[in-house]
């Protein structure tokens, strides 16, 4: 299998071709991890970079993400079988009372793009549901989004739920959405705030790498 071909197929969003190439790689005995990292994830990183440099739009990126997912779906059972862990688990959602999800979806998409397993709770999520999901799946990171100045305080309430449950320190909590800023993030004791999805993914990746580096 040609890694460059695979990369181009992901970038152009050719799901069928991606599937074929991944299958081919597996058959050729290339290590699953290598196909995942150097094949899929690195290709998606190129897509992310092109987006950051204003060369492509989100729709193009979404198509690529779907192609990557297609490849991933072949690798996943094998990964579990060989005991390779995904790079990390992330729970994400928009807070109670808030129906905005475009930004949150982009964050989720970018996080998937860097290889994490993402559990998307959707919109209008009850405070405690974040805690329950994080506990259930053994998440590394919890991402909380809010777009209204009147729902922004609910981000703080979610964090309070984590505290109440005595599990605040188990999770790296990231927050975002248009009205949020660093000062607010600090005031509610979040671990990280970023102003856009690309940075969010980068920051999450760095966190996961340092968490699992030892």
């Amino acid at each position, binding site marked *: 299998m040609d890694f460059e071909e695979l990369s181009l197929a992901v970038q152009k969003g050719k799901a069928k071709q991606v599937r074929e190439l991944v299958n081919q790689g597996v058959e050729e005995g290339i290590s699953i991890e290598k196909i995942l990292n150097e094949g899929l994830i690195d290709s998606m990183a190129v897509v992310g970079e092109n987006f950051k440099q204003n060369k*492509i739009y*989100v729709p193009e990126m979404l198509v690529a993400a779907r192609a990557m997912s297609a490849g991933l779906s072949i690798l996943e059972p094998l990964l579990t079988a060989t005991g390779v862990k995904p790079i990390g688990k992330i729970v994400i959602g928009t807070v109670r009372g808030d129906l905005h999800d*475009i930004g949150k979806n982009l964050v989720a998409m970018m996080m998937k793009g860097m290889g994490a397993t993402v559990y998307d709770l959707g919109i209008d999520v009850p405070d405690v549901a974040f805690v329950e999901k994080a506990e259930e799946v053994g998440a590394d990171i919890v991402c909380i989004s809010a777009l209204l*100045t009147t729902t922004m305080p*609910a981000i703080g309430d979610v964090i309070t739920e984590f505290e109440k449950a005595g599990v605040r320190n188990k999770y790296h909590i990231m927050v975002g959405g248009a009205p949020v800023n660093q000062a*607010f993030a600090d005031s509610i004791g979040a671990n990280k705030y970023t102003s856009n999805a690309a940075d969010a993914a980068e920051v999450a990746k760095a966190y996961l790498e340092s968490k699992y580096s030892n």
Partner: protein
Amino acid sequence: MSKQFTKLAYSSVDDMIYGSCPNPVTTRNGLVIGGGEIYPEVNFTLPPMHITKDTMPEVLSIYQEMIHGVLKKVHELHAPGLVVEFETLPDMTEHPEWGIQIHKLLRDTMSDYEAKYGLKSAIRMTPNDIREMSRPPIMRSGKYWEAMVKTFEGSAKDGADFLSIESTGGKEINDEAIVNADLRTSVFALGCLAPRDMAWLWTNISDIARANGAISGGDSACGFANTAMVLAEQGFIPKVYAAIMRTITTPRALAAIENGAVGPSKDCAYENIYLKAITGTPISSEGKTAACAHFSPIGNISAAVADLWSNESVQQVKLLSGFAPVVSTEQLIYDCRLMNVATRKGQTKLMRDLLVESDCYLDPQAYVLRPDVAFEIGKEIVKTQDPFIRTLNTAKLTLDIIKKAVDKKELVIEERELNWLDILESQLDEIPEDEEAFIAEMKKEVDSSKYNPSEYGI
């Protein structure tokens, strides 16, 4: 359908100007919208906070502070008229008594200023469309719709001048379409679902208005076209897609006027220009002075034919001079003054054209707002009464207009946009010209957990 539009409201594009329109609207206290002068429309909202029973006293005191600040500034600067918009936040519509109470506070304070200083003002009451709190949305019944009706009725009884809404019928499937720049689904949402909901909704709102002495104002496809504009501004989706999204919201918007609304239409509805061309109703608009609420490539051109000039929304935060809503008010007043002085000097048309020229060559979303383009699109729309065909043909015509402008080098677009002109064209080519056939196709394609066809009668 109470009205049909088969031709434009103007015979010459030169007559379509700001501050006046063929069918002006007059409030109880005699403020005429579209009667010759353009007035500011000010909108303001809460700073970051929870809205609960316990915080309601604080909420009320913030609204009191805001309306006093605004009215004081209007008085100081001798503005001849003012519209205040109160757009509720979701909690306030879910608890109609809260929204009604805030509206009453605003309305009463405005009346006080009128009694004291002769300051003529009107209030636009805009409950937000909470029907989408159910997923999939329940459009024509249920607790959310009932709460909305209560809010409309309660505020109309308390003297609301204009009833408005930014309704969301069809949006539940359009949201995902937007990030995919999926014009096919957008045509379905805006051409098939939205007009059906609008016809039903505006018949109801107009009935409430009539029964309670209020004026049936107008709608905005903000959740469609402005969402696209904001995403395009951030470089997420192509501007040419956002430009087409703008024009194809017009058939949807017409459904309000066809079913009882008389204007002024909503500020953030930039499709208002097509609406004004077709129906002659007064419109509100917003641009550079609404940069506090959203950035845009249409800062000046959006004022070209406006009858009200708005700041969209700003929170009660302190800037160096004072609170942000007062800052917006001052800016809007000066914008309007300049335009009205031009009118007094017989220079409305010239000022309009300068506003247009300011932006129209720099972005496709601005280009499609040119009055001559509005005329072209309006003429296409009134050829048929079928909202779906109107939508589809508008999309095709808009794409054509943009392509020609690019070819003529009259309009500059980014490299990565060019590609999308073709993608969008082939998307449109694949849509059948028969609504029934199209609906049948889309019923198969669209995730049926997202929306409820029967709520649209399809």
